[in-house]
């Protein structure tokens, strides 16, 4: 598979996921909450704190569950599309890129979107209140050190693995003949 065709498939998958608004918005909101939650847990990083490990495991499992549900939804509701693409000559790898592209894309835009909203909030507050914003609880809550953001981003991406695996497995299991099945 050539790099150009992978890029084309990914761009199309991103375009398609942006257009499935209801699903996109609900999962962006869920992933954003997850991103904040992970960052808050990571900010309290201290090996001496026994609760940290439980929190970290809990948040990772939640992330994996969300990703699994999303992977299942995407691959389930796209069964006919997957079968049709197989009829059109797409192979399993190409379809996997198409589906996995959507899962990763939603994660990335949720994270970037959340950061962007936080920047905006801090910016607006700074405009009106100046340096005193640093004393505000909300600002202290939404400002994270860069290493925390990087680690939480990587954690969310890792939590995608089960979702991608589920979606990939379902891509393999859909036979092209499903495309001819009547829905009525």
């Amino acid at each position: 598979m050539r790099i150009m065709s992978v890029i084309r498939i990914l761009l199309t998958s991103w375009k398609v996921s942006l257009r499935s608004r209801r699903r996109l918005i609900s999962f962006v909101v869920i992933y954003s909450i997850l991103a904040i939650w992970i960052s808050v847990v990571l900010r309290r990083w201290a090996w001496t704190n026994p609760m940290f490990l439980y929190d970290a495991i809990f948040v990772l499992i939640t992330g994996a569950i969300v990703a699994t549900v999303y992977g299942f939804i995407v691959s389930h509701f796209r069964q006919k599309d997957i079968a049709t693409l197989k009829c059109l000559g797409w192979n399993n790898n190409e379809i996997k890129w198409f589906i996995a592209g959507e899962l990763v894309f939603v994660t990335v835009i949720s994270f970037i979107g959340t950061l962007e909203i936080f920047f905006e909030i801090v910016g607006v507050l700074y405009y009106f209140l100046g340096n005193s914003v640093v004393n505000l609880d909300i600002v202290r809550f939404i400002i994270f050190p860069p290493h925390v953001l990087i680690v939480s981003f990587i954690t969310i991406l890792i939590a995608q693995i089960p979702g991608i695996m589920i979606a990939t497995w379902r891509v393999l299991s859909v036979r092209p003949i499903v495309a001819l099945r009547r829905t009525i």
Partner: protein
Amino acid sequence: MQKEKEYIIRAIDVWKEYRRGKEIVEALKNINLKIEEGEFFIVMGPSGCGKTTLLNVLSSLDKPTRGKVILDGLDLTSIDERILPQIRREKIGFVFQEFNLIQNMTAFENVIAPLLPTDMKKKQIEERGLDVLRAVGLIERKDHFPNQLSGGEQQRVAIARALVTNPRVVFADEPTGNLDSKIGNEIMKLMRSLNREKKITFVVVTHNEAWKSYADRIAYMKDGEIIKIESAKK
């Protein structure tokens, strides 16, 4: 592999059996069929007679239990499963009863979908997409989504998508099944004119007797068997 030139499709002693509980159902019984290149071939018969099963087997979507299917010189029954997508992309186009357009893609994006994983350049892909949309008379609707198009227009987009790879054969499964008779007639006319213009073989499965006049030959099926092949050539 030796290429057999004279016929684009050959089915030799094809049987298809399904297991339904303890019972074995014979969906296709000893099918022998030769379809010439550039032919407009219609498979007709009542529902449940095995038309769609035959289309599935001829188009590589399903394997026969016994027998051989040769498409453009390639034995589809013995070919490696991993090569089938490439064969579908290069040699086969599909038109479905329910159009099967991807809802979140525009008409143009649906049409060029088969070309996305190829090595073709973006410009070439776009040109090819626009050409086929022009051929089916939908160039002005290229940025519309399927839900903004009528049933007939959606089927025309699906036909354009089937043609975008310049296939050797287009398989159409009840292409007018979801359309009223007037639009259905337009779709059949369009497929027939594309068949004549581009010399692409069409294999159309239908139960609608009204479309007989479009065919070069018609195969009549009953209970999994071809009972008669009628030539419409004068």
